[in-house]
């Protein structure tokens, strides 16, 4: 493994670590809200990864204003596709979280707790 390359791509490393942290929370934490927070951390990590893919050094936003042509010739305009993709990704994440939170409200109302093992322990199939 090429370590200098890994440290050059520091954003990617951070995103991988965030992904693992999130997955740890989703699988291990007993509290459902914490699981959801873990899920959101995972989502953020993926967004960080995609946005970092589109970055360039001293990049300018892909908006046509004065100086845009010069930046384009110099190859300094950032990639717009990842930004469009994470906009979709964020909306999806928000929607999933909204549904998950309403399920949590109902679960808390019916079971009186948000502790996953306790909930799974009741009315077993």
């Amino acid at each position, binding site marked *: 493994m090429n370590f200098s390359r*890994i440290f050059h791509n520091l954003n*990617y*490393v951070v995103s991988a670590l965030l992904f693992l942290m999130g997955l740890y929370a989703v699988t291990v934490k007993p509290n459902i809200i914490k699981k959801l927070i873990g899920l959101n951390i995972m989502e953020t990590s993926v967004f960080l990864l995609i946005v970092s893919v589109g970055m360039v050094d001293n990049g300018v936003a892909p908006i046509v204003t004065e100086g845009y042509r010069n930046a384009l010739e110099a190859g300094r305009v950032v990639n717009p596709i990842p930004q469009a993709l994470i906009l979709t990704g964020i909306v999806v994440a928000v*929607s999933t979280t909204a549904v998950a939170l309403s399920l949590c409200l*109902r679960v808390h109302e019916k079971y009186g707790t948000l502790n996953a093992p306790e909930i799974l322990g009741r009315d077993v199939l």
Partner: protein
Amino acid sequence: MRRLLVVAALACLGIMLLYTIGRMPPMNSGSTPDKTHVVPRYLEHGEEEGGAPNIITSVILNYRGYDTMGEVTVIFSALCAVVALLDREKRGRSRSAADISKVKSSVIVRTVVRIAVPVIILFAVYTILHGETSPGGGFQGGAIVGASIILFTLAFGLPESTDRMPLGARIPMESSAMLAFLAMGFLGLAFGVEFLTYALPGIHGQATETIRMLMLMVVEIGIGVAGGIIFISIVFAMIREDRYELQPDIP
């Protein structure tokens, strides 16, 4: 034991991720594969082809407009999901925790909110309408609208809010984004071009530009209105406290 297994599995996954990342194209370089294949055309011609100086808006609404139609469907389905789980509020009868609580929000909070909310909404309108030339757009503006009404609800309580935003007015607005997209799509079909094409043929010169601008604007406004109202409806469904007695458990 379980935790140990999970940690071991995560460690394997972590090694795999690090291995992958170590082989990914270097960051911050202008010549990575992602910037040489599809993107150059967007950056070169995004303005004249896509119809918006903000190339991201061009990509979102024009090149990948079909994705964005799916995206507004995602928030619409989230709303349907939340409402199917928690039900709509009952007008005049639904109370939030803030209404039930003995402690009312203070005069200072109420006054500040009363002054701030219109300004926030104004800013949201600016964000929605200016999304074509500057950072912003329908989703961002919609989120700001939603936030302003949530602020209002927290200060003044649910009944005040639902009086101003009655259910009957909200339901048509919730599907407005999808309907705006579909209307623009079918308009394209009616003019004999492809679905979701904003440049209608048969209209020459300056008019094409203007019509494309208008069509993009309709979609942006649709997204903004629907986004805002959907967030508001979701929050209304979540904060009402009358859920418990209205919903008998079905065996």
